[in-house]
């Protein structure tokens, strides 16, 4: 068993799993759980993209 995703795929998988757990554990009602989980997913993903571009320009 050998799985080699791209960095971005790994980021998406990580953000999805963490978003699900954060949503369920940090909020009380299903609607708020979904919103919090979606926000966590979006923030993890967008933070990775922003930091990647930042490091790209810093490395230039």
């Amino acid at each position, binding site marked *: 068993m050998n799985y080699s995703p791209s960095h971005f795929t790994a980021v998406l998988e990580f953000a999805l799993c963490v978003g699900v*757990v954060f949503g369920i554990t940090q909020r009380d009602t299903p609607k708020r759980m979904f919103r919090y989980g979606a926000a966590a997913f979006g923030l993890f993903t967008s933070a990775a993209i922003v930091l990647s571009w930042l490091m790209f320009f810093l490395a230039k």
Partner: protein
Amino acid sequence: MATSTSKPATGSGTKSSGFLYGPLLAGWLVPGAGHFVQRKWIRGTLLLLAIGTMFVLGIAMQGKLYTSAQSILDMLGLAGDLGSGLFYLVSRQLSLGADTVQVTTADYGTRFLVFAGLLNIIAAVDAHNLYTGRKK
């Protein structure tokens, strides 16, 4: 000075009649089990899927399972891995995971394994809070 009107959780209206730390222990051993024993089937299933997927992906990426603590970082990694409960113990017995990180994806995998354990601890504590009535 502001006064707080919140009261500490007393467990009123809850079914915390059995072993107080049962859901915490069950949730640590198997992700989502702490919610299953309280008949929170959907939450438990989602937690099992999310944490289980993360652990399996970590193993599939040839992530490293920490087996000993030679340094402070190893110690933290081992603590994170131990959070996965039976997943970690069974994987150790089956010699899954890599001994050393040799490729980039293995480094991702190692992080996935550690985070699966840490998320499982959060989920187990959530099950405990549900059981004591601190959370609905």
